């Protein structure tokens, strides 16, 4: 009897210890870490915030290390443009891939395709960057972009997007590389969402005589719309923070691009390029301020996607 009691006590103790360790780990990773990152970013950037003012910094296009004048508008706009274009390219492709994998692909090929796409997600971003610089950029600079210019230069409005000298080191190439990088994330989220559609819904649609296309268009996509949006936003988070690949093909020029063929810069690129040699306090602090802006942007993006995904789960919990 005594031994049983002892064993029981021991098990209970073990359980409490185990629980509190897990709890601590969760609190640490989920709360203390992000909050302390935020605090340290804020602390480091306080000098720039005081000196330039939040609104002034965000709306200024200056970036002059010699005169010690800094502003974040150019990299901020660059980040938004490249992320937006990458999402624009990746979204239809990812949805198409997901539809193919769930509904159209022969069963035997499904695992091959989905593994191949997931492998894309595992490629380190510097490899995308090098591939972009050595393969994609020359191809675009010499073939694709001159062709685009010839085709579109006389079209009103759209022609403006293709002005400038085609180099392959520009917004267009960067957005394309970025889109390839986020497709695996996006398509696997959308694929999972499609798989969550209750089979009974699809079957009833088929029973009513719907074609495959009608089932996809009128049953699956409406049901999963909010999840697709969630997946999109999740990938936007990834595109916002992407650094290495963008550094290689963006051209690193502190200007707001006026056409798709202009070189530009993003927040992460500005950080990666200038952090090591930032030698004055205000310079360093301005870089921290950029990092803080990116941190807040990413936080909101992830928060938004979480809400979308939660809404879907509530709606379709079987």
């Amino acid at each position, binding site marked *: 009897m005594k031994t049983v009691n002892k064993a029981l006590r021991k098990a209970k103790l073990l359980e409490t210890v185990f629980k509190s360790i897990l709890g601590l780990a969760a609190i640490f990773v989920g709360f203390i870490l992000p909050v302390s990152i935020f605090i340290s970013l804020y602390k480091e950037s306080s000098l720039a915030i005081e000196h330039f003012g939040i609104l002034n910094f965000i709306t200024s296009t*200056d*970036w*002059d*290390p*010699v*005169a010690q004048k800094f502003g974040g508008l150019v990299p901020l706009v660059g980040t938004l443009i490249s992320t937006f274009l990458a999402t624009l390219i990746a979204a239809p492709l990812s949805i198409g891939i997901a539809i193919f994998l769930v509904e159209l692909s022969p069963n035997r090929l499904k695992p091959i395709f989905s593994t191949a796409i997931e492998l894309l997600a595992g490629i380190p971003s510097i490899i995308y960057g090098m591939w972009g*610089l050595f393969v994609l*950029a*020359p191809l675009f*600079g010499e073939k694709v972009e001159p062709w685009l210019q010839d085709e579109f230069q006389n079209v009103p409005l759209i022609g403006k997007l293709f002005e400038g*000298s085609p*180099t*392959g*080191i520009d917004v267009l190439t960067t957005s394309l590389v970025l889109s390839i990088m986020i497709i695996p994330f996006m398509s696997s989220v959308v694929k999972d969402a499609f798989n969550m559609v209750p089979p009974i819904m699809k079957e009833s649609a088929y029973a009513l005589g719907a074609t495959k296309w009608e089932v996809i268009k009128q049953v699956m996509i409406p049901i999963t719309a909010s999840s697709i949006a969630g997946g999109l936003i999740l990938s936007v988070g990834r595109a916002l923070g992407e650094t290495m690949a963008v*550094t*290689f093909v963006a*051209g*690193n*020029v*502190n200007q707001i691009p006026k056409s798709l063929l202009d*070189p530009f810069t993003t927040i992460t*690129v500005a950080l*990666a*390029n*200038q*952090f*090591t*040699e*930032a*030698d004055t306090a205000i310079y*360093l602090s301005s870089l921290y301020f950029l990092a803080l802006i990116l941190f807040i942007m990413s936080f909101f993006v992830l928060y938004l996607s979480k809400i979308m995904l939660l809404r879907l789960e509530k709606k379709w919990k079987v």
Partner: protein
Amino acid sequence: MKVKNLAVAGLLAISGVALAVEITGAGATFPYPVYSAWSYKYQQETGNKLNYQSIGSGGGIRQIENRTVDFGASDAPLTPKELNEKKLLQFPAIIGGVVPTYNLPEVGNTQLNFDGKALCYIYLGKITKWNDPYLQQLNPGVKLPDREITVVRRSDGSGTTFLWTNYLSKVCPEWEKQVGYGTSVNWPVGIGGKGNEGVANYVKRFRGAIGYVEFVYTEQNKLPAGKIKNRDGKFVAASIETFQAAAANAKWDKNQHFYYILTDQPGKDSYPITGASFILLAKDRPESSKKAVQFFNWAFKNGDQEAIRLHYVPLPENVKNMIREYWKENGLM
């Protein structure tokens, strides 16, 4: 019992390592290859180890300011005022230079002539074609093509940029007024490549491109390198001899902590975009600084061959002696 034995063995191992001196340094990326070659030999000969992290000059300055390393390294010298504020000492360790490189299929590897005004106007976006009359009259024997100039520069902060822009500021008032100099500046035109390899790659890719890279880099990659007109009016190509000529003509002053930028030096053989890479020591930590001084003193004595093999330029003998005096004055030797 077992645990105890292990602990004793561990302690022994740690003390065994501690017997050899370990020097830590951090900073400039430009001299990294030569510092690491020196440290390899130094370890073979003396058993002492140098651990140098090439995190960039800005990082090197911050690290020595916070006293987390034995020495910091910076491509741009700190002013005597800054050094006093931060309680640091400074001396040059190695010399290098920056050269203009270009991609013009029409002239191939012909060495083109440039002068300060030409480079300045190209980088200001005022000269936009290779057959610009100003460029053409600098190169009487060459037929320059009617080609758009694509300007390439560094996107990351770098000592290379510091020397390049410092030279342009010295020889071109418009540059000084509009841009100034520093490890990174607000460029009026051009696209930015990351690192020497990034710039070289862009130059190779774009016909009509011009860029600037470290001398080491053109040598290793067989890139065309332009000649630059120096203060005495001679067109000189970058080479170990012309860098050394510039360094020999420099008016180093140990009372100013060797604060001196080697660009645009007088002398008929001086290459105008030459620069030294500097070492920073903490004044208030003589023990750490002594370790670093020992290493550099050894390198000054035994490292010249190694430096030349890597296309760096060792300091001239008179400068080395001046640095030794500087060490003695500050009680480090």
